[in-house]
């Protein structure tokens, strides 16, 4: 299964506005994307399109997360979501 790691760049971590922007983008991608803290079991992965899941994940700036997806377009979707996570969305 294609997967990518990304380091959270937003100052406030993955909640508030950055979480909303990321969840919306994940929801619009053609494949289902999961997110988990790096090193945690695959079973613990959460739906990346769920803002509430992202908030309970509690990823702070500098934390490393793993994104996973399967199917047509998975690689492209993961690449664009990684870019989003590695951008400081609070600065925009």
């Amino acid at each position: 299964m294609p997967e990518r790691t990304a380091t959270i760049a937003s100052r406030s971590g993955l909640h508030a506005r950055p979480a909303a922007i990321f969840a919306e983008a994940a929801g619009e991608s053609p494949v289902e994307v999961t997110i988990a803290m790096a090193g945690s079991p695959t079973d613990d992965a959460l739906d990346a399109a769920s803002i509430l899941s992202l908030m309970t994940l509690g990823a702070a700036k500098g934390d490393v997360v793993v994104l996973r997806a399967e199917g047509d377009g998975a690689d492209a979707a993961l690449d664009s979501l990684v870019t989003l996570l590695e951008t400081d969305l609070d600065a925009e």
Partner: protein
Amino acid sequence: MQNFQGVGVSPGRVIGTIRQMPKPVSEPPSGEQLAASTTAEEAVAGLKAAAQSVHDELKARADKASGDGKAVLEATALMAKDTMLLKSATKLINNNGSSAERAIWEAGASVSEMLHNLGGYMAERATDVLDVRARIVAELRGVPAPGIPASDSPFILVAEDLAPADTATLDPAIVTALVTSGGGPQSHTAIIARSLGLPAVVAARGVDEIPDGTEVFVDGAAGSLSLEPTEEQRAAALAWVENAATLSVFDGNGTTADGHLVPLLANVGGAKDAAAAAALGAQGVGLFRTEFCFLERDTEPTVIEQAAAYRGVFDAFPGKKVVLRTLDAGADKPLPFLTDATEPNPALGVRGYRTDFTTPGVLERQLEAIAIAADETEAEVWVMAPMISTAAEAARFASMCDAAGIKTPGVMVEVPSAALTSASVLRHVGFASLGTNDLTQYAMAADRQLGPLAELNTPWQPAVLRLVQLTVAGSAEEGNGKPVGVCGEAAADPALAVVLVGLGVSTLSMTARSLAAVGTVLKTVTLEEAQELARLALSAPDALDAKAWVRAKLPILEELGL
């Protein structure tokens, strides 16, 4: 022409059509099952459709909003169709046969609790999940969404009562007046209306039965709402527009006609309020409600955070007086890190200064933060404790202020015992400030939030005026000319303000919107006339007569529509 009589709490005369605020969404009964005619698949589909339409409605509002409000609405919209929330509700429908309403209710509760337990920013979003849940239930039931109705055209809002949280969604460009069937003169509706300068009537029984879209005339000074407005009332509404313009400018000089100076100060809740008050000519801040900076918090703010919040207010008033009240948590303003929500009698419970008995340390750290902020500015910083009942408490508070390096400690006089013993209380501190809202509720033993007690709950009660007089007399007895101000909503009523000056009060602090009206009326009377009006009010048998007698001697009020 049908008339509804209530209590006027904020002046102004307007004509408009009404919108009823929907009743809060009630909890679907525990264990509520799917109706026999509905399959689980149909219920899940119905839930998804309701969630989608709540999402679309919030998204549409987000698109029209800006700034922080937009970000919150966008995030809330996403919560409405969140997979975590909907999956857990779907499971309850499929596995337990729950009704869709009950399923989303329970799913929302558990997600909200999870966020709450995470603390910090996440905990602050927990209430958003509950709001979304209520909206989805309303959608499923086919009833209007809770909260202030969304509208592009102006309307008069009719509600049972408003909560502090409603202020955030109340747009004064759209809502032109507030009328409530419940609430008293000291309720949140009244405070919100005065701070926004909106005409308002509270405790007007029967108004919740008026259909949406009805044209009405509201008189916020007379406390009435009339159906089928007359030509006279239309003319009065037009005249108010002009008066309101002249009554919006205060020249920054509170004085009687004969030059007796009474500084007019503002009540503020934070830096934004303070800047607005300074722009409206306030001569300082008579009440900085520090708890308003922290109402959304689950945990105690750090000393550094607090100092920054205080500094924001001090900076708006360089060289001027800023009276800061230490955290007044409890009763209608709970703070999770200070107050116990399960008290049977919160108004008589551990609130205000008393929280230092049960949670020592918070007050000490707040005083430390105030001292840091005061050091960095040119404002003249005074600090007072709320809910002081005895001279011993005043002495202890003064010594805590001294230890923190705060030069001017004072007390709120809102418990009748402090008013009755003000000479002893004032021996330990530098000043007193009368909080007339709570002083009235305690003197009359009438909960300020209760509509049926609105008639008892007015600072025009001769008993309350007598307590004001005794507090001033106590200061004279103490002998060092220590100032006694008023910072309750009573000071915002121009007629009552004159009476208070006549009783010997040295400063009046009010919502900044009222400064111009109070300043205008005060300039029309001499100190001697004010003293005469104070004697008249004290001699009245009840509050209604006190108010009527004084108003009859101040014809300018009727002229200006105040």
